[in-house]
């Protein structure tokens, strides 16, 4: 069914773009070519990229402060994207650490979003209208997951059976859990989306460890070019590459 393409070299790339055949002179690309390992004379230099598939884990917290809240998040993401016979789930992929780092940065503080008042609920067609940042929504949402677990099962969320976790997450998804300044359905959507972002973003963000998210999906990540295989009839299995040089 599948065939493995021969390794696509940087020399092939230079050939097909026309860069090596004179287009370089006078073009605006010279600065950009530094990133493609071409020196000032237009000669190809050795590829310094590493093929080491090991991944440092760096498991500190940038946003969370206690293990209990982090575990609630971890277990919730694992139910959304569970480990199965295809491969790892959210926890093994590092998704909770991905989310921790995102909440500590501009994602968590909504720095690129219009956050000026007055705030109103609005119609569904008018989109996100909360005064809360994503960081606040996650904090509150995690507290509510705990609260709901205690209410329904007299246990913390992380001590529940998988089906019990699913029951609670479904209640959030169906907007059945009262929250302040945001709906539980919105928190659930945010959690679901962030889980997929952590599973499938470049490993440099802390998730998608060992590129296993990509490997399950057969997405080859950061490839320079497909020009030599784009016309193939058959499906191409290609070893993934990350921007960090994995």
């Amino acid at each position, binding site marked *: 069914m599948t065939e493995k393409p021969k390794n696509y070299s940087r020399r092939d790339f230079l050939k097909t773009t026309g860069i090596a055949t004179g287009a370089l002179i006078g073009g605006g690309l010279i600065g950009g070519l530094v990133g493609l390992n071409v020196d000032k004379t237009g000669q190809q230099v050795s590829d310094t990229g590493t093929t080491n598939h090991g991944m440092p884990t760096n498991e500190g917290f940038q946003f969370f402060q206690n293990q209990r809240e982090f575990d609630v998040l971890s277990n919730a993401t694992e139910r*959304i994207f569970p480990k199965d016979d295809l491969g790892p789930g959210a926890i093994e992929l590092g998704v909770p650490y991905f989310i921790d780092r995102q909440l500590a940065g501009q994602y968590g503080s909504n720095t690129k979003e219009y956050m000026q008042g007055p705030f109103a609920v609005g*119609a569904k067609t008018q989109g996100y209208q909360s005064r809360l940042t994503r960081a606040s929504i996650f904090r509150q949402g995690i507290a509510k997951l705990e609260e709901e677990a205690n209410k329904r099962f007299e246990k913390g969320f992380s001590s529940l059976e998988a089906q019990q976790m699913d029951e609670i997450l479904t209640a959030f998804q169906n907007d059945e859990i009262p929250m302040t300044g945001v709906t539980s359905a919105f928190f659930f959507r945010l959690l679901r989306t962030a889980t997929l972002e952590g599973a499938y973003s470049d490993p440099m963000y802390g998730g998608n460890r060992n590129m296993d998210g990509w490997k399950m999906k057969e997405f080859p990540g950061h490839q320079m070019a497909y020009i030599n295989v*784009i016309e193939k009839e058959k499906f191409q299995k290609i070893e993934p590459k990350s921007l960090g040089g994995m």
Partner: protein
Amino acid sequence: MATTLPKIDVVIVGLGWTGGIIAAECAKAGLKVIGLERGRKRGTEDYQKIHDEYRYAVRYELMQDVAKETITIRNNRKMPALPMRQMSSFLLGEGLGGSGTHWNGHTWRFYPYDFQIKTMTDEKYGPNKLSSDYLLQDWGVTYDELEPYFYKYDQTAGISGEDKNPFWGKRAQDFPTPPMKKTAILKKFEGATKSLGYSPFMLPSANLSEPYTNPDGAVLNACQYCGFCERFGCEYGAKTSPEVTVIPTAIKTGNFEARFHANVVEVIKSGNKVTGVKYLDTQSGEEFIQEAEVVVLASYVMNNAKLLMVSNIGEQYDPETGKGTLGKNYCYQILPGATGYFEEQMNTFMGAGALGMSIDDYNADNFDHSDLDFIHGGSISITQTGYRPIETNPIQRGTPTWGAEFKKNSIYNYTRTLSIGAQGASMPHKENYLSLDSKYKDVYGLPLLQMTYNFTDQDRALHKYITKVTQNIMKEMGAKTVEGKEVITDYDIVGYQTTHNTGGTIMGASPENSVVNPYLQHWDAENLFVVGAGNFPHNGGYNPTGTVAALAYKSAEGIIKYSKTGGSLV
């Protein structure tokens, strides 16, 4: 107190495609030009680490910072408008190149029918085909008049394509470069549409099929089909963008200066002329007045309209009375389509923004509408842009959206799903318009632009009809399961749809029903030109950039002429 700067020949607000084209043409003609861009300088060297879906496609790295300025939205006049707090439905550009940096490169010429839509619809179907609530009007320019300007853009951009569409307007010259590569996925579409009796052809593309040097000496490289195109900049300089074509051309003349972090807040008007613009240096906080013989507004649809509104230039459109032209005929695009689930794996992750095949059998007035309750239609295409894993998780209706079953299905379908989509035309309606918001302000203290917009019965009928056509094609392509897009109800600002917003500063043959004349010269201020998709009196069945660029070339010619003779160009 603003500092007044020495008068220049031409000042341009915004350095995307339209600002870049006008800067290049005016500077080549010897005019001294200053371009004010509120974003930052950027170019190919900034795109070398661009294969990052999370940063660029999900978190919108290259797009407008809506913390500073956004719009407000409501579906109708009775609703309170609320701010679009995060981008989703459409993605506004910012920085050198504007949205011309992160476009896909689909490059079309609107149909002869589009430019004379009122006349031709009335002639063929009588004057009451659509109710009088639809504000159909001719553009004041014909396809034949625009043809040389279309070609000029084709040459600047090096467009790759083939003149094999039997329906579109006559091309005096063939495409500058041959079409892109035909992939297995495209061939499925080609075979199916041919067997259904349609006429497929390669989509005209600004991702170049081969290296190309344009008439101004700008060099473009060949597309590598890397699968990171729309929402990204091109690391190879192979996707035609302003920062690799018209901007370097303008700079080369020695007559052009680009100023960054310069946010224009007002166009200054005196009598029947404008004297310049007031802008804020967003880094120092200083205010400047740049005086100019000619002012060109070349920012996006939204901001061009807003600048005229906050500067009190022209009469605001009022849906109650029908009076006024500014803000009128805001249109969007209607997106019928179908998804097919296949059994065999396909190379869905490879591609390029404008790698595709299309049919136009259901675009414009290429099919008979006598028994239909809508006019116009849309181009129907399959594109292989490169599925990326965060945002492409195809599941059939009824599949859970999370958990074990979701994971299994979304992974299985990722390389086994194709979509066909149409760029459905959008007709102007008296209740769809742009105005100023009375409550919400931007970071500079100016009111936000307010959008009042909903889908119409015409839109819903077109969507339903074309969706069925796309479902049939997908079945013919061999999909095991085919799902048509769900019927559209109300416009929802959540979920990406298209960045093909049009109208608000429309062109026309008369000041009675338009903001600018066919040279995009303002009817109320002869040295003010307003350029962009805001000029469209309705939106056609294609992506807009090719038509926007042709209008910009015509306007540039007008500006150069005006600089010599003065007065109205019509």
